[in-house]
């Protein structure tokens, strides 16, 4: 692991991304190749079937540790033409707020070097429409459904938790605490350990569902927030949400995003995300879902080795709608190649 020339080990089809700035390639190695032929030759079905990919998180059993990241997977239906949703480790939907949220004005997106800045502003149809119109569709799939929620006040978080507890088909809540508390000067919940803990406690009091708190990296010490929310009852943690950033158009001297600042995602943030996951996994006893810049199975494996029990894939699905399937297949191939029989052997297996 970790050696540059080792990069084709996961997938003999050599789908790994070539070094940047290569002039012209005769043929672009394609993720779709593995999509159409998920089981790369060389691994017998027998070897594959002996591999366990299932992991447990907050009382849920995930058939494999790979899930979409909230906000990059819509409400699932958008990806149905491209992938088999039943093959996911879990389904994670876009953040739901109590009332419909219209979001920020455009432009909302700006690509930066190896990254994507977004300022969507949590545009979503609100809880009621989610329950009435989106949930019935999502219920038909077998992987656990994780509903991501956000509030503007502690009470809104509590109400979201209470109402989602009462509907069938929701398996866990993921709590986006990267939003401002309108009652307390607009301070982002997730940046103050005590405030993050209060949100967690209020949600736990209002639901029997497992609660996953999603941490923001825009803090001085992420482990302080992690410990505070675990003490308040969080069943699992997910991290990282996007890093605050901006870009400027030098011709017009205006910010590239109408909202001026946005959240950075994609491969650019992977080392930061990995470091945060590694630190948090050591600081708390609950399982961690790692994310931030995962583009392929090797990236996912790094997060598992750093201590994550599962991973989420965001920006990669925007680049290639089939990315989640490729990552699941390649993770399995890696295990077979390494002679491992259980993905859990990788979790926290970092050697220092």
């Amino acid at each position, binding site marked *: 692991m970790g050696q540059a020339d080792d990069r084709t080990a996961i997938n003999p089809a050599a789908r790994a991304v070539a070094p940047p700035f290569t002039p012209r390639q005769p043929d672009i190695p394609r993720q*779709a190749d593995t999509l159409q032929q998920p089981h790369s030759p060389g691994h017998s079905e027998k070897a594959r079937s002996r591999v366990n990919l299932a992991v447990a998180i907050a009382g849920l059993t995930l058939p494999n540790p790979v899930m979409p990241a909230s906000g990059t997977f819509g409400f699932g239906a958008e990806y149905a033409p491209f992938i088999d949703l039943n093959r996911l480790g879990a389904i994670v939907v876009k953040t739901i707020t109590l009332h419909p949220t219209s*979001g920020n004005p455009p432009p909302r997106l700006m690509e930066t070097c190896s990254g*994507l800045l977004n300022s969507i502003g949590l545009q979503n149809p609100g809880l009621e429409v989610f329950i009435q119109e989106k949930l019935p569709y999502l219920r038909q799939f077998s992987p656990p459904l994780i509903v991501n929620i956000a509030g503007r006040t502690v009470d809104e978080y509590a109400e979201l938790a209470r109402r989602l507890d009462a509907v069938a088909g929701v398996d866990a809540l993921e709590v986006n605490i990267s939003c401002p508390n309108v009652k307390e000067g607009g301070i982002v919940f997730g940046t103050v350990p005590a405030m993050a803990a209060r949100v967690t406690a209020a949600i736990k009091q209002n639901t029997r569902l497992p609660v996953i708190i999603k941490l923001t990296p825009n803090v001085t010490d992420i482990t302080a927030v992690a410990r505070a929310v675990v003490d308040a009852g969080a069943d699992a943690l997910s991290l990282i949400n996007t890093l605050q950033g901006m870009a400027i158009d030098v011709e017009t001297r205006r910010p590239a995003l109408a909202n001026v600042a946005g959240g950075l995602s994609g491969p650019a943030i992977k080392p930061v995300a990995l470091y945060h996951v590694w630190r948090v996994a050591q600081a708390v006893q609950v399982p961690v879902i790692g994310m931030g810049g995962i583009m392929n199975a090797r990236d996912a494996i790094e997060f598992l080795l750093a201590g994550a029990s599962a991973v989420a894939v965001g920006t990669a699905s925007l680049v290639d709608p089939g990315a989640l399937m490729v990552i699941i297949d390649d993770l399995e191939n890696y295990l077979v190649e390494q002679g491992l029989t259980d993905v859990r052997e990788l979790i926290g297996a970092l050697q220092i």
Partner: protein
Amino acid sequence: MKFYYDNKRGQSVMMFTKGTIVAQRVVSDQYHLLTIEQPDIAKQARPGQFIMLKAWERIDLLLPRPFSLYRILPERGQLQILYQVRGQGTAEIARRVPGEKVELTGPAGNGIVLPEEGAIALLGRGIGAAPLMAIAETAAARKGLAVYTFLSARKTELLLGREDFALYASRVTLATDDGHHNEGRLLTALLAEMIAREGIAIRSVYTCGSRRLARGLLPMQARYGFTAYIFLEETMACGIGSCKGCVCKVREPGSPAGFVYKKVCQDGPVFPVDKVVW
């Protein structure tokens, strides 16, 4: 919002696949015409739809780029896009040569509904001619439908696709800012003049490439009895409606703000001009 487009998307299946470059031709300066072989998309695509195209493997350049379908050639299993080299993504596309593979997602967005008969007008500014060509070609296949095309640009060399339009349109009217064609007059004025002079009843107008042109069509709708549509562009990431990054403001009288954000990729890219909040 289902009243102005052909909502047959349920029947066409969007796919992520690869295609092979068949031809790459420099049309003018920074403008290229790219022909891609991808029969599955070519068979399903309709005018107004677009593809997300990725023609590089650099990890520093992440997102695929959206391009309108300039021509849809189902019998040949090919698609054509007319594109302007602007930044890194389009520069990469310009480097690709026949035989090379590209990744594409499509057909994305909603196709337009053409009237069975009568007359339509296409108003394109610069690269805005790109999505109009697919309309002209499809319309030409309908016996009773006349197509009047109006193209403008800074100078003659930038009047893109005018030979192609000449093959399909009943008439092509040109205007250049340098005054070489039609003294650089506005396409809306030229359209109004044609209607007034010849009494042609235009049913729909499609425009792309200039918001000013689209706004100019607003007051003309009632007077001349046509419905005008614009191809909107917004920066995109997924192109399939999942990220909510590509929104535009669309009028919605009942809503608190009087407008809602609609996704250009999934709800568009074609919108009636009087629905758009300018």
